[in-house]
């Protein structure tokens, strides 16, 4: 780090003025104050000096505004292109005050009136040098963070083996940061995916991230259990990098890590998840069913000395995919008024097609979406992509208009190819079935809940809606027009649903209904 209090003789000042008297006066004042002063008679001469010695050889430029050839403003603009941190002081006559605003806009840090007053000059030059030093240090730090960030992003590059199973969609918002994913092939039939978000968006977060990834890889390769690795890193965050303030109760840490691990054993058909402060992962079945994995969400690593591990084990998973994301996606989904699943799907599909989702520009944090194939045989039927999963309380008069906005926004984002007329059919059928489930299936009782999921299969061009309630069931098999009862007040909603959907399947006597919409 540069010492801003180092002696003035270390600092080089360029004094640029076409008038010899002014140059002599400037050099006299500056040399007297201890600065090393280089006097030049034109902007062109200043350019030549900078080109020869480099912009960082100079700490401040004091230049006259009005000079034959290039003006001081033109020199200022050129200097800023060479080194935006280099401070420039503009000297103007009182009649040139109109140009002051222009020179300030161009990046001058100060301006001085002619004739030059010694005290004002020295004070201004001192401040300009401090600014140059500070801005150069900041630029250097930005470069370092950017470099670490780039290295960190390269870590997302997965091996060919991992790429068969794991899709990563990463939209960094900051130059440095701590979001990362690691894939570990533990045996020919088992693998571990570790997804994490280190707090902060600075160099420190990037270092914590890089250190943790190295630690995990090293310990796993030496045969340590994942639980041991996490416990070790938790202790490390608190004991090595924490800032102690007297006792454990008041220990704060410089970094915490939210993470989710997924251990997939294809031979044993088991899936084990561990969640530490990470958004809950989702499972999408090969049939398009969407379920939030019921992991016990423990606290992030780096918070408390005691680390409680809650492995969530699911035997015989039916294949399909796990989807997880960092909290940056949740914030963005809320800002956009769309479901998180719809946003995750939109980002993944856009990446697969080589496009960028324009909405990502509104993200305020890094967004990382990870999709993991847990189907033993990768050559399976086309996949379902999740669009929405909601749980609604029973009600006779649910706020369906409000929910409709979320459905419409989510469908538009995740399934932009759905024709407008088909979107109308889907929304109308959703209104009818959801009201039916809440008013009849849940008997209007808010203690009872109905679930709604929407998924899309892009290959089959089919949208699948699954609505489930705890009630005794409904007769969704009612055929439209089977009787000349179109003027009856009953069952108009069921008739509509039958006509709108391509196919209806019901389970549990109709308490769960699956509506497929081809498009």
């Amino acid at each position, binding site marked *: 780090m540069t010492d801003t209090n180092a002696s003035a003789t270390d600092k080089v000042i360029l004094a640029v003025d076409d008038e010899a008297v002014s140059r002599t006066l400037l050099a006299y004042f500056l040399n007297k104050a201890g600065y090393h002063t280089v006097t030049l008679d034109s902007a062109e001469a200043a350019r030549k000096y900078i080109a020869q010695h480099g912009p960082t050889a100079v700490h401040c430029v004091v230049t006259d505004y009005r000079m034959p050839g290039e003006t001081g403003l033109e020199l200022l603009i050129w200097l800023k292109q060479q080194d935006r941190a280099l401070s420039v002081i503009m000297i103007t006559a009182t009649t040139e005050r109109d140009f002051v605003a222009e020179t300030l806009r161009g990046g001058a840090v100060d301006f001085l009136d002619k004739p030059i007053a010694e005290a004002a000059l020295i004070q201004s030059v001192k401040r300009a040098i401090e600014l140059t030093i500070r801005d150069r240090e900041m630029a250097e730090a930005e470069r370092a963070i950017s470099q670490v960030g780039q290295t960190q992003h390269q870590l997302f590059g997965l091996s060919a083996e991992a790429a068969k199973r794991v899709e990563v969609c990463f939209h960094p918002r900051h130059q440095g940061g701590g979001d990362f994913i690691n894939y570990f092939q533990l045996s020919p039939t088992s693998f571990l995916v570790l997804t994490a978000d280190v707090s902060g968006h600075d160099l420190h977060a990037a270092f914590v991230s890089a250190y943790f990834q190295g630690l995990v890889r090293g310990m796993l390769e030496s045969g340590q259990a994942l639980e041991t690795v996490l416990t070790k890193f938790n202790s490390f965050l608190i004991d090595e990098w924490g800032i102690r303030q007297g006792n454990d109760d008041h220990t704060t840490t410089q970094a915490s890590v939210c993470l989710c691990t997924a251990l997939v054993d294809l031979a044993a058909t088991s899936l084990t998840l561990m969640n530490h402060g990470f958004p809950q992962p989702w499972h999408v079945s090969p049939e398009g069913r969407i379920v939030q994995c019921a992991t016990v969400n423990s606290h992030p690593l780096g918070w408390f000395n005691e680390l409680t591990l809650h492995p969530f084990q699911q035997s015989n998973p039916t294949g399909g995919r796990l989807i997880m994301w960092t909290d940056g996606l949740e914030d963005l989904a809320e800002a956009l008024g769309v479901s998180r699943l719809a946003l995750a799907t939109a980002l993944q599909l856009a990446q697969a097609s080589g496009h960028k989702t324009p909405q990502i520009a509104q993200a305020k944090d890094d967004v990382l979406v990870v999709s993991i194939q847990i189907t033993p045989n990768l050559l399976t039927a086309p996949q379902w992509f999740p669009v929405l999963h909601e749980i609604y309380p029973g009600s006779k*008069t649910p706020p*369906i*208009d409000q929910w409709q906005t979320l459905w419409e926004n989510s469908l538009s984002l995740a399934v932009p190819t759905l024709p407008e*007329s088909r979107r*109308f*059919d889907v*929304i*109308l059928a959703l*209104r*009818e079935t959801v*009201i039916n489930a809440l008013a009849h299936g849940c008997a209007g009782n808010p203690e009872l809940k109905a679930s709604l999921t929407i998924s899309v299969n892009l290959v089959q061009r089919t949208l699948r809606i699954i609505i489930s309630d705890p009630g005794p069931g409904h007769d969704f098999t009612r055929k*439209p*027009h089977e009787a000349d009862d*179109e*003027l009856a*007040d009953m069952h*108009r*909603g069921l*008739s*509509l649903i039958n*006509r*709108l959907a391509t196919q209806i399947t019901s389970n549990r006597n109709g308490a769960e209904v699956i509506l497929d919409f081809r498009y």
Partner: protein
Amino acid sequence: MINHILNPSDKTLLLTIPGDLLSTNTDQIKKEIHAIIESASVKSAGWTTLKLDLTAAKMIDSVGLNLVVSLYKEAKKNNAKTTAVISNPNIQRTFLFTRLDTHIQVVMA
């Protein structure tokens, strides 16, 4: 707010619905329409056509359709025919799906 116009020359009662007809707003609309139909001036007019202007609607759900059916039945009691004027092809399909177009004349604006 439901607007209505009685046209004495062709004995038409025009009811203009300001937007969608959905489960969330149909009760209120139904009350307003019945207040109009039951008003003395409309009752004594002897209208023979009920024209529903639904051009502002983008969606009509089953509860909204129930209201349309009840108005059709009300008109039929008075020996009047019912016409629905719509502007949205999706709503035209809704009338078609529920076969209400076989009872009510549906006109695209």
